[in-house]
């Protein structure tokens, strides 16, 4: 139930950032060229995009319109019903989002699930061989992989698999089943890029769990190590893992900004980057709001999933 006040807060922050710190006049001047821009051109630019209304309170009209005919109401409050309005270049943002959602999901959903599976297994393997050479070399490898910027994984992957081995196209996207060959490389690159940090993080979680009393009890009962790991450590380790996954949830829709623009996938991530480069404030504003909505949905989902993983937690 904390969702609504947070959303209102986000809304106010974006509103202040986009309309109060920089007035629509500044934006118009920016778009039309900095110098030698006539007043009339600025007024026309604002008229076209509906930025010509007063910011908070409109004294020139009657009744409820005093509130509704303002920039705050038209551009910020309407976001609550997912009415994103039109972008500064005149396109319908809501339609664009619904179109571009699917390519993003096609990349991020497989990345998330394959990634979780892979990282958890790696983490378990390292935890199983704790203290041995397998563990030490695994951790060293993780630290080394963590220290490489994600950009290099993308560039390296594109060069090696796309250009050198010619296995899949370097970038692009297609509809339907043809999309498969375009998806493989981004998913793979995303997977490899995350291995270092995630595996080490999961290993730490599992080791922390293995240090607890119930694991000692299980071992004392004479359970084989594999059963201890899968039955006890894994299920208990899921709680912190779930918390970590929520942080990724918003990026599930938003797509990975960098990956999408590198691989020229027409998803939400590249949409946002294009908007940033074109300085289209309306789109960035909508994406900020959408992102925080998804984050809050993620928070609520975690709370619910806790009750499945850990029956002691009750929703109230």
């Amino acid at each position: 139930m904390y969702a609504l006040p947070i959303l209102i807060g986000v809304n106010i922050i974006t509103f202040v950032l986009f309309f109060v710190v920089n007035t629509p006049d500044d934006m118009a001047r920016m778009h039309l060229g900095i110098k030698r821009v006539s007043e009339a051109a600025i007024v026309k630019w604002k008229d076209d995009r509906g930025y010509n209304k007063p910011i908070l309170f409109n004294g020139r009209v009657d009744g409820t319109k005093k509130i509704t005919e303002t920039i705050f109401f038209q551009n910020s409050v309407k976001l609550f019903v997912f009415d994103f309005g039109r972008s500064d270049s005149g396109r319908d943002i809501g339609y664009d989002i619904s179109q571009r959602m699917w390519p993003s999901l096609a990349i991020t959903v497989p990345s998330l699930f394959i990634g979780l599976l892979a990282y958890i297994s790696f983490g378990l393997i390292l935890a199983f061989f704790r203290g041995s050479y397998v563990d030490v070399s695994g951790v060293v490898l993780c630290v080394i992989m963590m220290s490489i910027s994600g950009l290099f994984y993308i560039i390296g992957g594109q060069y090696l698999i796309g250009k050198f081995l010619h296995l899949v196209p370097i970038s692009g996207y297609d509809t339907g089943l043809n999309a498969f060959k375009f998806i493989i490389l981004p998913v793979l690159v995303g997977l490899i890029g995350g291995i270092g940090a995630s595996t080490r993080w999961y290993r730490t979680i599992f080791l922390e769990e293995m240090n607890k009393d119930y694991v000692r009890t299980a071992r004392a009962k004479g359970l084989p190590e594999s059963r201890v790991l899968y039955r006890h450590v894994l299920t208990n380790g899921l709680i912190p893992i779930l918390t970590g996954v929520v942080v990724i949830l918003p990026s599930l829709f938003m797509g990975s900004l960098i990956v999408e623009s590198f691989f020229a996938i027409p998803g939400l991530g590249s949409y946002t980057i294009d908007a940033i480069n074109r300085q289209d404030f309306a789109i960035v504003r909508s994406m900020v709001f959408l992102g925080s909505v998804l984050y809050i949905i993620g928070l609520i989902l975690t709370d619910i999933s806790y009750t499945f993983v850990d029956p002691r937690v009750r929703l109230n």
Partner: protein
Amino acid sequence: MPVIFITDFLIFLLLFGVVAFFFYGRKQEHLAAPWRDVRKRSLAMSSAVILFFFVCIGLFDSIHFHPKIETDKSTEKIYSNEILSVLDILLSDLRLKNEKTYSAPLASYSFSKEMIEQENGKKIRAYPRLIYGGASLNNPESESTADIVKRISLGFLYGLLISAIIINLIIFVLSKLMRASYRTTLHNCLLNKFNTHWLAIFITTLTIIITICIICSLSQNYHVFGTDKVGQDVLYQALKSIRTGLVIGTLTTLVMLPFAIAMGLMAGYFRGWIDDVIQYLYTTLNSIPGVLLIAASILLLQVYISNHADDFNSIEQRADLRLLFLCIILGITSWTGLCRLLRAEALKLREIDYVQAARAFGVQNYKVIFRHLLPNVMHIVMISIVLDFSGLVLAEAVLSYINIGVDPSMYSWGNMINSARLEMAREPIVWWSLAAAFIFMFILVLAANLFSDAVRDAFDPRLREF
């Protein structure tokens, strides 16, 4: 005439703070003991040496001034408009040796063919000689390999010599401090009998100095990492980028630290409505995706800069303001984690007897926070500073790639990668800009990661037994 950028000022403020904290922490047993543990670790000490070299380069690059123009009249002082740093002076060799366009590492010939007019007036398409690369050679095709080998071995010898002097100097000072003979000190260092892992420090220093000497000796006649599109030395760019990386990695934490500490401790200590407000604040900020918040803010800064273009004296100052602003924004998006940790710790601490006793005696709230809570959360603050560093350096590269990072005119690894990316399609491929950025970033981030691991293990002993 010196010029002080805001970030320069903050960097030296930070340096001063670190030194002050060092002397403060030495007397506090709960802070000093884990550091002794860090000093025993070989990997941590190696990374510390590497970080030290990076920081030195960054500091040299943070002292800016307008250079004096040589004139005939010695009484009159005229300063050029250009802003240089001490590092630029040290590297003036690299800075001024500009080629026409791309050239491969250690090359003597240009990367692309050009029309060359020969002495007899005939024009042919061939690879022209570089202006500086391999300039001392008469016939680079046959001589260059031998010359490179000669220079590498010369650099190696010099490196050996210099590092031997430095290491001997350290041992000499140590023996004076320990009041032992030189030989026993050397013996103890090599057998690793001190509290500090001197052996690791010596080996790392040796490696670094030899590398530096080899690069120095090579770059007198070649471009070690080649040149970029406008013919600028890539090694110079990579070295200049160190400051940007360090500024982002350290100042961001410095900027957010006062807020995070104050808010976290207040929320945990006072509880009630203050806690609610602060929690609301950081959950709200947290729920906005970081990249988008940064993008929005940078966009707005661009609007501001373009509308107030007259307020800035130079491109450097504008770039510097953007760098600072980026640090602040990154700080705003990342202070929530530390704040939450501190709140949890303060909640625990406020129930401890000595805090309760202080309250019962009627000590004012702010005094309790300063005297009793703050010193006891210092280790958390320290760990988070060290842990955040590497992530921030990596984030800079990604942000510069989407054009919401540092100013495009500023040297940074992100900008290097960004401009090199466009050349990936060339055949043969232009790889050296990427390679240079990769190597420098990798070394810095790896050293930071290893060092922060050691620090965290020392301060957080839960996992030490594994």
